[in-house]
């Protein structure tokens, strides 16, 4: 993507965001913000853990078929 198109993407999203027609609800908004640290932290731990598992799985020669662990 060129610089100009990146710029226009950013400009578009700031200048012309569609109207938020749902009331997100103060309580629902604040709960997310209050839990943001925990949710983000748990997510990072989970992702790292699956990377570590993936590393060992590869090391011991299992999981050669990438579909094996897909849904």
């Amino acid at each position, binding site marked *: 993507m060129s610089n100009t198109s990146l710029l226009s*993407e950013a400009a*578009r*999203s*700031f*200048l*012309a*965001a*569609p*109207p*938020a*027609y*749902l009331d*997100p*609800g*103060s*309580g*629902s*908004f*604040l*709960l*997310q*913000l*209050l*839990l*943001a*640290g*925990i*949710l*983000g*932290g*748990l*997510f*990072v731990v*989970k992702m790292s853990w699956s990377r570590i598992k993936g590393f060992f799985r590869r090391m011991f020669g299992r999981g050669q078929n990438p579909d094996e662990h897909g849904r």
Partner: protein
Amino acid sequence: MSMAGNLRPGSSFRDPSGFLFTRGGVLYRQVNRSYRAAYDQLMESGLYRELVDAGEMIPHEAVNVAPAERSLAALVVRPDPLDFVSYPYEWSFTQLKDAAGLTLAIQKRALARGLSLKDASAYNIQFHQGRPLLIDSLSFEPWKEGEPWVAYRQFCQHFVAPLALMAHVDVRLGLLLRLYIDGLPLDLASRLLPWRTRLRPGLLTHVHLHAASQRRFAGTAPASRTSARMSRNAILGLIDSLESTVRGLAWSPGGTEWAAYDQSHNYTPGALEQKRRLVRGYLQRIRPSMTWDLGANVGSFSRLAAEAGSTTIAFDLDPSAVDVHYRRCRVEGEKRVLPLLLDLTNPSPAQGWNHRERMSLAERGPADAVMALALVHHLAIANNVPLPLLAETLAGYGGSLIVEFVPKKDSQVQRLMASRQDIFPGYTLEGFEQAFRQTHKIRASERIEGSERILFWMERR
């Protein structure tokens, strides 16, 4: 609402991003100028293509058609038509769970491309050719790091709360969605759920704490309370947490195995085969493209209509049967059958704003063919519906009718009458034929061997 030959469905008015209209029998969606940038980002980011290719979103085509409201319009698109519109209160547990899973999967794909779902309404999902599908192409907005998920509350009300109640209290509580058109109030769900659900981190967070937070912060502006931001990892963590919460909700249909359902009838194998052959023969002569199978159970006869090339809506009263049927269709890749929950004695009404947001069952018809197999005794005897009224109602649902008369002598009818007086002197074969001749022409009829039951093929007069 009608403007110069355009009809606007009563459900399409909330979102200023655009609306649906029909013209000349074709359904279009007007995209308004206020949504133009988000629409372009949906298309240009590759998200639209990704979702359509994954079979997760309905395809649409930009068309050169005059908009319905020119002053607002950016463009007009024509979405692929749906065979049938169904509503969350007509879905079984697994159907609602699949729709929830799809919504979250779409949100993850959107976030990866700088967009986010701006609504998470269960009504934006429809079952089409055996799979749930997002039907609203105006549901996305650009996501800027730092912003919480605008549709979090809606997702919890439409999906997490009803699924939790169905899994942890009683599956019939899914019908609360019929009462609360924007999803279950979380304070209500929190009160109804057993205390032990507070020990589950997902339900604790998304229902109980969520309800408490709504109570605590009602009417305050979020910005005044915190300067916290929602990082990318935080919003991905939120979606991940919702995913594992939904995945962790389980319900098994009455502890029964699938097979047990097919055996709850009165037929010898020979009689069952004969009944199948007769139904198949009638269907081949009717050649319906839309069939409603009323009282379909787990759909052994719905399958015959599908095999005859008909889209088939398989209604049943029993949430277990509908769930078993849906799971079976999903496993077998059956695309033409849609199992739905319906109580014929109190079918889905027209409701929502001005009674026009959600269509009644009748408004979604008529079908070409209606099947009512092993059903009339439940309506005429268990629910006291006089036979002429029954004939009239079935005539309203579709032109061709395959109907089975189950006489009083039948053990299933005896069971229904065991605890009550016989106030049905007119419930005889003669009475049945006489009632139905008022509304229908009998084209064929045959007794099912080894029983007193008679199968009819009728056409509406």
